[in-house]
């Protein structure tokens, strides 16, 4: 049965990265008595180890093995949870991630760092825990272990009551049921080969456990004339010298159990006299990772390996702990007495509940199709509208059908778009670690609060918002929250609060990053801006305007540049990136009380509400979000500026007028302003009044990139297909502002217009 494991490697890597994230998040608030968390961490590490072994990432497997042993000692209560241990495990997690990334990309690992961490793991394995109690102090851990076993027994009777030694046996390997080895008599039924089983493979698995001697007994063989080559008439006597327990051995034969006679007996020590005695000497803790961890883990590793290799033929539930996630769910579903006792693991549950992995390209294909459907629907709708003069009864039915199609299409579109939506916890989850590391480095005390983690947004948006968020959080920790002494002096609690909050508002997701630190000091901001030449000396600014200064290019208020933040490339880039996503970022601050950044983002990048306008005979689409208002021109509100630029007075504001037709349809003379309409748009804090010939409808448009078959065009963010099948271009308002700026410098004057008005 040759299975190409290559196709599973990606899945393994993805799962491992998820596992590492889980380890990280659980480690950060790990307490000694939190058996559930310790077990979750252990399981994740164990899965990584098992998978790494299966897929040939030997280095990862070996490294993780040490981590797993440490974790197992925590799990069984031999080793207390200390801050040093947490730090070591966190760093080990980083190493594993590096190694996996390196394995995936074929890159180099930081061998020195890995060796260093490995050295520390080995050292702490050698040094006994500070609390060498052989039995776990926490009832929870034991109960859980017992639960796990009872479940295993229920699920697979092969294992019943086999490994009592698992919990008790941590210090003395001799107490367990583990003998020096096993004598196995394997008499398969003649039909065993017909069911696809091959004794050779079984023996190969056994040989992995240790030293295996195989003797084949040929007594059962019939004379050659009667021999059926498809029947197995041989039997075997195997001697396995290994410290695995009986269950492990029996499990190897799990799939042929119904078709054979199997006897497994423990070997006496005397019986292995001919085996190298050194093997026994090595079984002394703690330098070698023996004991329950390796026992249990080896059998689980085999189980999981088996689960993978048998693929679809086996039912996963019968293989205990085959995939850790499955077992967790199985436990919940089977109702096996875990509920209500242990600390719940919300993060884990949220990602575990019935999700499937689907390639993003498939989803994009679906989205495209649905987009087409939307277009077809609006095309039919248009035809329906035009047929009003036709036969009445028939027409009514058509219109009814069209209305239904429209409703269905919209629902289908919404659900397909939903597939791309992920909870923002995927981004938020990285912050506990970041805050932990940074606050430790800076000597600050910070409590991080996350809320609204289940708020969903588009995967693409999510990928792009990560870095800006990290930047804002770093800033809040580095510049915002003060050192403990300073906070106490200011009459605030010693630890600072950092709160990340996400929620939906309209068609947007809003993310707030709130700290209770020192807040922004307008005077210092202004002084800095003057020093940097961003603001002219003596210029009066309101507090809000002063706060806005932090978004100016090349502005940094850090008194000394640290490696955490403050390289001065920060906030303007943050704002630019968020703008590029069609979002906005604002800051609110009160001196001494802290500061809040509010990020608003569209839920998706694939669909947008647009206003259709006609310019120079062509239809263009203006994103609805950037439109402030649309209005008819009042000639008396048009003023000219140095005879070159027209401005429109809207209430108390003068807004530059832009003849779109000039910008878009080269060489065409701008029409008369009197009959035109103005669409006032805003981007980058600047308003423009766009002159258009006509306002058409508003509709949702599916955004198609021009880059796919062509290239980016300044002033356009893409194209879409209208109901009649023609292409309409989507205007990019900030691009237009840039385009106008360029024009104004290039052209000495803006033609006509003045007279026309």
């Amino acid at each position: 049965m040759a299975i190409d494991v290559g196709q599973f490697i990606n899945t393994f890597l993805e799962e491992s990265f998820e596992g590492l994230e889980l380890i990280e998040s659980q480690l950060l608030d790990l307490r000694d008595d939190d058996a559930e968390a310790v077990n979750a961490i252990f399981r994740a590490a164990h899965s990584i180890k098992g998978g790494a072994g299966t897929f040939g990432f030997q280095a990862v497997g070996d490294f993780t093995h040490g981590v797993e042993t440490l974790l197992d000692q925590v799990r069984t209560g031999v080793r207390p949870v200390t801050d040093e241990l947490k730090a070591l495990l966190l760093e080990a997690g980083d190493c594993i991630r590096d190694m996996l990334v390196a394995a995936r990309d074929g890159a180099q690992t930081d061998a020195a760092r890995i060796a260093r961490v490995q050295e520390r793991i080995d050292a702490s394995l050698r040094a006994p825990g500070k609390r060498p109690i052989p039995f776990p102090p926490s009832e929870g851990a034991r109960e859980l272990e017992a639960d796990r076993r009872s479940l295993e027994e229920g699920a697979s009777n092969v294992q019943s009551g086999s490994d009592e030694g698992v919990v008790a046996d941590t210090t003395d390997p001799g107490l367990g049921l583990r003998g020096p080895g096993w004598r196995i008599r394997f008499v398969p039924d003649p039909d065993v080969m017909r069911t696809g089983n091959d004794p050779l493979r079984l023996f190969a698995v056994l040989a992995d456990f240790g030293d295996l001697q195989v003797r084949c007994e040929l007594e059962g063989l019939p004379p050659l004339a009667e021999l059926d080559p498809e029947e197995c008439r041989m039997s075997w006597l195997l001697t396995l010298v290994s410290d695995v327990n009986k269950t492990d051995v029996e499990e190897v034969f799990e799939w042929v159990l119904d078709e054979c006679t199997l006897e497994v007996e423990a070997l006496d020590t005397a019986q292995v006299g001919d085996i190298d005695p050194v093997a026994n000497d090595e079984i002394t803790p703690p330098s070698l990772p023996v004991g329950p961890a390796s026992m249990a883990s080896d059998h689980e590793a085999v189980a999981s390996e088996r689960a993978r290799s048998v693929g679809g033929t086996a039912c996963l539930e019968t293989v205990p702990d085959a995939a850790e996630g499955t077992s967790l769910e199985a436990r919940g579903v089977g109702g096996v007495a875990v509920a209500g006792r242990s600390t719940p693991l919300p993060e884990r549950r949220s990602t575990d509940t019935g999700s499937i992995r689907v390639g993003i390209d498939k989803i994009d294909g679906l989205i495209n199709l649905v987009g087409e459907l939307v277009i077809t629907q609006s095309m039919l709708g248009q035809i329906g509208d035009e047929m009003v003069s036709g036969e009445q009864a028939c027409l009514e039915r058509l219109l009814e059908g069209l209305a239904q199609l429209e409703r269905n299409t919209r629902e289908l579109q919404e659900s397909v778009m939903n597939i791309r939506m992920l909870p923002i916890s995927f981004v938020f989850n990285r912050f506990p670690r970041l805050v932990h590391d940074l606050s430790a480095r800076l000597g600050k005390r910070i409590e991080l609060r996350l809320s609204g983690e289940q708020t969903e947004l588009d995967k693409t948006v999510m990928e792009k918002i990560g870095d800006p968020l990290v930047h804002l959080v770093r800033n809040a920790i580095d510049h915002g929250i003060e050192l403990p002494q300073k906070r106490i002096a200011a009459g605030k609690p010693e630890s600072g609060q950092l709160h990340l909050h996400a929620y939906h508002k309209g068609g947007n997701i809003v993310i707030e990053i709130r700290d209770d630190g020192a807040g922004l000091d307008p005077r210092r901001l202004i002084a800095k801006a003057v020093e940097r030449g961003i603001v002219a000396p003596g210029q009066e600014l309101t507090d809000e305007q002063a706060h806005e200064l932090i978004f100016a290019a090349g502005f940094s208020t850090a008194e000394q540049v640290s490696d955490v933040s403050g390289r001065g490339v920060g906030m303007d880039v943050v704002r630019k990136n968020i703008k590029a996503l069609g979002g906005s970022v604002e800051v609110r601050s009160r001196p001494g009380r802290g500061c809040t950044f509010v990020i608003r983002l569209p839920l998706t990048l694939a669909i947008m509400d647009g206003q259709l306008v006609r310019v120079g005979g062509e239809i263009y689409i203006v994103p609805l979000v950037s439109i402030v208002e649309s209005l008819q021109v009042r000639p008396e509100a048009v003023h000219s500026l140095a005879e070159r630029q027209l401005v429109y007075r809207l209430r108390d504001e003068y807004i530059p007028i832009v003849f779109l037709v000039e910008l878009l349809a080269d060489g065409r003379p701008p029409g008369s302003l009197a009959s035109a309409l103005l669409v006032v748009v805003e981007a980058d804090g600047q308003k423009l009044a766009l002159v258009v010939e006509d306002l058409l409808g508003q509709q949702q448009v599916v955004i198609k990139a021009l880059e796919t078959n062509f290239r980016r065009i300044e002033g356009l963010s893409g194209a879409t297909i209208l109901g009649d099948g023609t292409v309409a271009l989507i205007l990019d308002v900030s691009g237009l502002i840039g385009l106008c700026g360029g024009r104004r410098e290039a052209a000495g004057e803006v033609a006509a217009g003045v007279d026309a008005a």
Partner: protein
Amino acid sequence: MNELQATGGDVLGIGGETDQYLTFMLADEEYGVDILRVQEIRGWTRATPIPNAPSYLKGVINLRGAIVPIIDLRERFGLPPLEYGPTTVVVVLKVLGASGSRTMGLVVDAVSDVYSFGPDARQSPPELGAVVDARFLQGLATVGDKMVILLDVDRLLNTGALAVAGLE
């Protein structure tokens, strides 16, 4: 719809160095493109103009949901433009470039024929004397006493305003 799907790769099953070319007319000259690059041939439909683009870029059309740019080959080669009529044809091509494959349409006067050329039938283009920049030519071939100009689609449609990065 007056579009006919181009036939796929192994039409004749001829191995070796022989390549098949689709030829089309342009101002009484016959041009050829590698037939494996031709996705379809369709009639002219109005394109949505792209702002501030060179005149040979007629705009973009909707090709079953994809936004595809349309290039007038006459104008690209500096030939006098022709009024578009019912016989005006758009050859939709797959173009390979730095950023992967793109789909583009070429407006030509009329589609002519399909020929197979072995390596002997092709010769390298002359350096001088052609309207067309020699960079865009793959070579010249002879059919009877006709000359066919073989175009290098990837070079032609990855230069100037058509380049991915938009570098002139």
